[in-house]
């Protein structure tokens, strides 16, 4: 369970998060929508401790992420994150991209790590590309590789930060299909996205962020069918 309690976060004078409260249960899929600068991507990087927070608490399975004593390297093994820019490691093959962390971080042997990686890569439809270098892959394929790379650590949680925003339109579908598959398999996910149809389809709950606050959260039918907050209404009208 991920528990976010009254989290405030600023970059210099700019207040990005102004008191966020959100609890995500095991197996739940929560999508976060909202305009740019609403703080939704920042929230994800706070959850895995890549960014410090000013006040408040974030608990992952009871471990306080920003406590001084928390072993962040260990915590991150359990929280996969995939970014808008997929950040493939260009000097490694697709297979090596995926085996690197299991081998060096978890200390798994080469053969076993390769078996895990191969399974994850087949899962995202890259079984034929194991010995290819990322530069030979399309954006959509690189993004799916990044997803397999995160999954190879067998995390309990996956965070997706606008993973289709940097892709050519015709490549968006394949990546969303992969996310949908994960959601159906019961992965606990928080997805920041601009894909409204996707949010409506896969989410258990949809949160609408506006200027650093969570203006509204609810079932997708409610958020998309009967938004309560005037800002949610205005936002949804603008993206339709």
């Amino acid at each position, binding site marked *: 369970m991920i528990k976010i309690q009254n989290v405030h976060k600023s970059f210099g004078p700019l207040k990005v998060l102004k008191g966020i409260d959100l609890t995500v249960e095991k197996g739940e899929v929560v999508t976060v929508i909202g305009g740019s600068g609403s703080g939704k991507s920042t929230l994800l990087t706070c959850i895995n401790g*890549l960014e410090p927070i000013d006040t408040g608490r974030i608990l992952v399975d009871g471990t306080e992420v920003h406590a001084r004593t928390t072993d962040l*390297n260990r915590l*991150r093994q359990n929280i*996969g994150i995939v970014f808008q820019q997929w*950040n493939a490691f*260009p000097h490694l093959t697709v297979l090596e991209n995926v085996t690197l962390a299991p081998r*060096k971080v978890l200390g798994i042997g080469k053969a076993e790590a390769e078996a895990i990686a191969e399974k994850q890569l087949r899962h995202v439809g890259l079984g034929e590309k194991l010995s290819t*270098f990322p530069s030979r892959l399309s954006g959509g394929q690189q993004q799916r590789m990044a997803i397999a790379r*995160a999954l190879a650590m067998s995390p309990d949680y996956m965070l997706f930060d606008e993973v289709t925003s940097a892709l050519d339109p015709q490549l968006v579908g394949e990546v969303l299909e992969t996310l949908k598959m994960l959601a159906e398999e019961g992965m606990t996910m928080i997805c920041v996205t601009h894909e409204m149809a996707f949010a409506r389809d896969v989410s258990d709950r949809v949160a609408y962020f506006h200027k650093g606050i969570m203006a509204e959260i609810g079932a997708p039918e409610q958020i998309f069918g009967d938004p309560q907050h005037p800002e949610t209404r205005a936002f949804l009208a603008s993206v339709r």
Partner: protein
Amino acid sequence: MFGYTFQWNQALARLPKMLDGALVTMEVAMLSMLIGIALAILLTLLRLSGARPLRAIATGWVEIARNTPALFQIYMAHFGVASFGIHFSPFVSLLIGITFNNAGYLAENFRGALKAIPETQTRAGRSLGMSQLQAFRYIILPQMLRISFLPMTNQMVWAVLMTSLGVTVGMNADLYGVTQDLNALTFRTFELFAIAGVLFYAITKIITLGARVIAARLFRY
């Protein structure tokens, strides 16, 4: 024409000795390069570190290495430290001087290479649970070495040529030292140094070709 009679045979008879010297030259150059690369990586880490004194040490090293003559650096490694009672053999002093120079220049090359690697690469590694050092070792370092490979080859050539400065600290086993001693014995100055020049050229060519072969094997992407 200038009243000088070429006597190539006399000079060529000394070729085996010069080839022995060439081997020593290559030995010094390669050792100084290997240790220099290791030190340059260390200097790069120091410069990236948050600790001010560590950064200052690294920056000082790079500044001195790049902005003083190589001859000064080798001199200091021999006669300079001797003032404090530390005595190195000419071989060791030459090795220290060139290594110091290599490390400084290479660290600067590495710094440039790091700028070409996006910050997000480290971030991606960290979010997979890697420590800062693991992310550097497995993600940043291989890319950094590849980007700076050509400048590294240049430095290797420069290291070979810098060995000729060893004569100033009494080094006589390397190619230049051997040539100078033979010249004192035979006075076939032009012939001997011409041969030395050809040998220097051959050594640097062998090294750049070797580097290219290594690069082709190492850099697969």
